[in-house]
């Protein structure tokens, strides 16, 4: 399996993505931003199809669109509009735009399927470089602002900073989340973003009681699903994201069941 270059690339990409998704997912779940992450992935879909339309790498389109969305959502956060309503409006518009760009760009169906359900087995070395640079940026931002981001995610009421600093921190959080969603879409696709960004972190909550341990276990669950999913996809010739989804949902359900016991 590992003698094939495309499998090596897929494992490298999968590992990088799982580490980012596990760490950022811990904050996303703590802040109850699960559905916002899904909306961001729909926006990522629009961005990728925009990328195809104008001839960019889809990941660049994703990054551009998700960051614009993160900044807009961040500035809308303090208004009277209900967050879930804003989120549904943004999602609807994003999917509409995605379909528009796919149609305008006469993008092949296989490319569209790749955006929606992931296409890690076809990832190129150049894409991996972009992925690694993005991942380093996300992890660096988390390292530099770890303590305030941790407090924002796990206990916003305890975060005692001026209102302007709080808004800046919230926007940083959304941008980090947007980048992670764009990165993770490369592996599981826009429609299955929950599989890597929220499910491993949600499962970890049943076992761990500190932020660092939650992150570690979340990364472990994400890595386990990704590696096993890639191996199974190789053996069966079926899509990777199916297996990752089944494994992560399985871990989550098992965790709930064990917690009830």
């Amino acid at each position, binding site marked *: 399996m590992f003698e094939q270059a495309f499998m090596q690339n897929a494992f490298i990409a999968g590992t990088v993505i799982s580490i980012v998704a596990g760490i950022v997912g811990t904050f996303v779940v703590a802040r109850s931003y699960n559905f916002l992450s899904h909306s961001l992935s729909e926006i990522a879909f629009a961005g990728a199809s925009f990328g195809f339309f104008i001839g960019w790498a889809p990941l660049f389109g994703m990054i551009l669109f998700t960051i614009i969305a993160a900044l807009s959502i961040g500035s809308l956060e303090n208004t009277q509009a209900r967050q879930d309503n804003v989120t549904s409006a943004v999602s609807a518009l994003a999917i509409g735009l995605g379909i528009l760009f796919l149609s305008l760009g006469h993008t092949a169906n296989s490319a569209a399927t790749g955006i929606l359900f992931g296409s890690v087995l076809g990832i190129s070395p150049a894409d991996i470089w972009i992925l690694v640079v993005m991942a380093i940026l996300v992890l660096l931002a988390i390292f530099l602002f*770890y303590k*305030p981001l941790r*407090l924002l995610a*796990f206990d916003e*009421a*305890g975060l005692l900073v001026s209102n302007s600093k709080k808004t800046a921190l919230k926007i940083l959080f959304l941008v980090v989340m947007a980048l992670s969603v764009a990165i993770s879409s490369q592996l599981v696709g826009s429609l299955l973003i929950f599989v890597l960004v929220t499910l491993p972190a949600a499962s970890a*909550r049943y076992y761990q009681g*500190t*932020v660092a341990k939650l992150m570690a276990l979340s990364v472990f669950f994400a890595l386990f699903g990704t590696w096993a999913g890639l191996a199974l996809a190789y053996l069966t010739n079926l899509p990777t994201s199916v297996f990752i989804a089944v494994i992560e949902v399985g871990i989550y359900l098992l965790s709930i069941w064990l917690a009830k016991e």
Partner: protein
Amino acid sequence: MVNQVEVKDFTAAFSGRTILDHISFSIPQSQFTVIVGENGAGKTTLIKAIIQTVLGAKRPVGEKAKAIRVASKYLAYVPQFRDLGSDYPLTIHAFVALGLNRGLRPWLNKKERAAIDLALDQVDLADLADQRLAAASGGQKQRAYIAQALVQNPDLLILDEPTAALDAGHSLALVKKVRALQEQRQIGVLWISHDTSWIKDYADRYLWLHDGQAESGLAQDLPDQAIHHHQEVTNV
């Protein structure tokens, strides 16, 4: 004695209604001060103005003051509401550690561990440190919130109705606990309270907000009207 808080000519008016009308008062260092007043009297507005001053934020539209001076290097605040959810994963120890939010190093050093242990010990939660916060009782949760505020060694601790969700027995226990640690640490405490029953016995000073005005003095001199009014409100 140097004043820890000095407010001069502070006015707060929102949507055409004046909540605080040119109030001035001062609070000496290291005092346990209770802020009383009916709902809408401006208690939270005043506290927020003090906090934002320490944080160096711009004064919002509708608020004016000749001066608000707060002698505090580190201020800690325990808000009235916290929406953490029944599946909140962190242990009490990890929750308290969230209060250490300065510097880059993501892990705890010896000094920080000692600060957490001291704070947990002072609020009687040392034995429950590894228990999940979500599984704690109302009183234990309030004490965990206070421990999180204490962990950075504040010189001024502000609490917004910490006993609102507690029964009379647990409320008094919390008052005694905070009084004890205020004396041990020699810090200033500003405590917003609806319950006036314990003020004369456990606080140093009062600040009574009513009709847009502020009256302050020694706790033992708390005017009967302030107590009386509270009883009328709670008996309705």
